[in-house]
């Protein structure tokens, strides 16, 4: 892996005077993918938005590319949860993607420049949606919407990609579509990624590091180091279990029966 890209030391994030998450310390290297796990209200989104430079109420040290996040927003792409979007606005998929590049090119956007449209088309091709560019965003399936948002993030040519629950509310086949695009981004573009998720299992293929938070840092390390019974039970309760299948670690809650495989 490359140089250190994110440095967080004793990072405490505040919302309306309350501590959303406190005392977070970690480092992430260039090219790595971090899976950020934790229950609802654990502070995952707060941490992600702060790293994206969208939330500035924090104490401690946080450097992204050696600078405070707000100063390097051009290098960061943030993909919000798709349900937070207002789909009453009848934007086409290509217009949503173009949004990622437009604001780096001026202040008024009466028309989308042809160069931006071309980049948006290429980004849609990359995520496998070249044929739906003129469909309205609201008419797309959950998986397609998430891939359009990924294309929007890519068109801004980021060095750091932050994804908030990209797999939530998706059916299994849509999850596979999105995960395969994320794997392609990692493989072909080598962009550093932080992905918040409730369910790390579909993402273990691409996760280099795992961080477990629950208002504070519970564990940070490789999947092998973090996805252990004694660690995940602290957050998810006594029914949580870590299972190694082949070379990969998985995390389950409830009874697990795996035949012919190592159980850790």
């Amino acid at each position, binding site marked *: 892996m490359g140089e250190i890209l994110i440095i967080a030391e004793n990072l405490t994030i505040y919302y309306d005077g309350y501590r959303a998450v406190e005392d977070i310390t970690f480092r992430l290297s260039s090219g790595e993918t971090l899976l950020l796990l934790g229950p609802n209200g654990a502070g995952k989104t707060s941490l992600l938005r702060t790293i994206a430079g969208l939330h500035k109420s924090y104490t401690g040290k946080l450097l992204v590319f050696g600078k405070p996040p707000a100063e390097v927003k051009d290098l960061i792409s943030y993909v*919000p949860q798709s349900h937070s979007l*207002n789909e009453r*606005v009848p934007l086409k998929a290509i217009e949503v993607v173009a949004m990622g590049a437009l604001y780096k090119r001026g202040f008024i956007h009466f028309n989308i420049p042809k160069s931006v449209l071309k980049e948006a088309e290429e980004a849609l091709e990359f995520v496998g949606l070249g044929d739906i560019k003129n469909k309205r965003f609201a008419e797309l399936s959950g998986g397609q919407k998430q891939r359009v948002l990924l294309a*929007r993030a890519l068109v801004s040519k980021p060095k750091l990609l932050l994804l908030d629950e990209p797999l939530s509310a998706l059916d299994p086949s849509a999850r596979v579509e999105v995960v395969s695009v994320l794997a392609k981004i990692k493989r072909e573009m080598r962009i550093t990624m932080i992905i918040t998720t409730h369910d790390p299992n579909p993402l273990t293929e691409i996760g280099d590091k795992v961080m477990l938070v629950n208002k504070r840092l519970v564990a940070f390390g490789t999947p092998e180091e973090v996805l252990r019974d004694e660690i995940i039970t602290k957050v998810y309760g006594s029914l949580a279990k870590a299972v190694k299948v082949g070379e990969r670690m998985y995390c389950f809650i409830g009874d697990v029966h795996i035949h012919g495989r190592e159980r850790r």
Partner: protein
Amino acid sequence: MIPEYLLRALLAGIMVSVLLGMLSPLINMKGLAFLTHATFHTLLFGAVLGMILGLIFSNFSLVLWVALIITIFVVILIALLENRGFSSDTAIGVIASFIAGSTVLAFGVLYKVMASRPYFALSQSVVSYLTGELFLITLNDLMFLVLGGAVIFFVMLAFYRDFLYVSFDAEGVEAYSGNARFYLTLLYVLVGATGALIVRTVGLITLQVVAVLPGTIAVMLSNDLRKILGISLGLTLSVQVLSIVLAYLTDIPPSGIATIMLGLVYGFLVLRR
């Protein structure tokens, strides 16, 4: 031969239609109906304050300017509160309540000032702000409406895509190096300025309906942006022109006729669903 006052009313109606036809879909898509409601309360407060100053300084052109300045100040205040993390509902609700209280107070002061200047027939103007006075539009009013409307129209046109983006995903605009707060504040200012500009034509009571319903109806009929804008513009224009003609023929206020027509179209579409 069309009487001159009717011609002026028709031209004013066309300008109002263009502005509201463009703005109404945004009000609907961004969910700004409550803001428009608060804006129009503010316009009343501004108009009453303007009338007080107009009486004191014997200059009734102050009414429009004071209403415009107060409304823009208030919408910027609402935007600032939202930017500080208050929900849109809370920011508008708090400010609108304060404005409503202030309006009652201002009316008290107005009546006191009016009592000291009985030779001014200003009570008529208060009523005209509530109901609109389309047939009493002067050439100066019309010029002001057209010039001001043209400025609002071109600003709205230039930033229309940005308003759509900020309505779709304000955080996304911010994340991709855009200034979502600026676009949102500008949109609020345009809503306020449009209201201040057309209030004498349409009337406060009707303003909410003609600002919200055309966009609502257009969004019900189509999910294509060009069609939505076309329907909203066409509907507003038809209703405005038809209401002026009917008002001319029947002596019923045109704002009331416009409200009833839009209400009937909306009701028909709701029942047809």
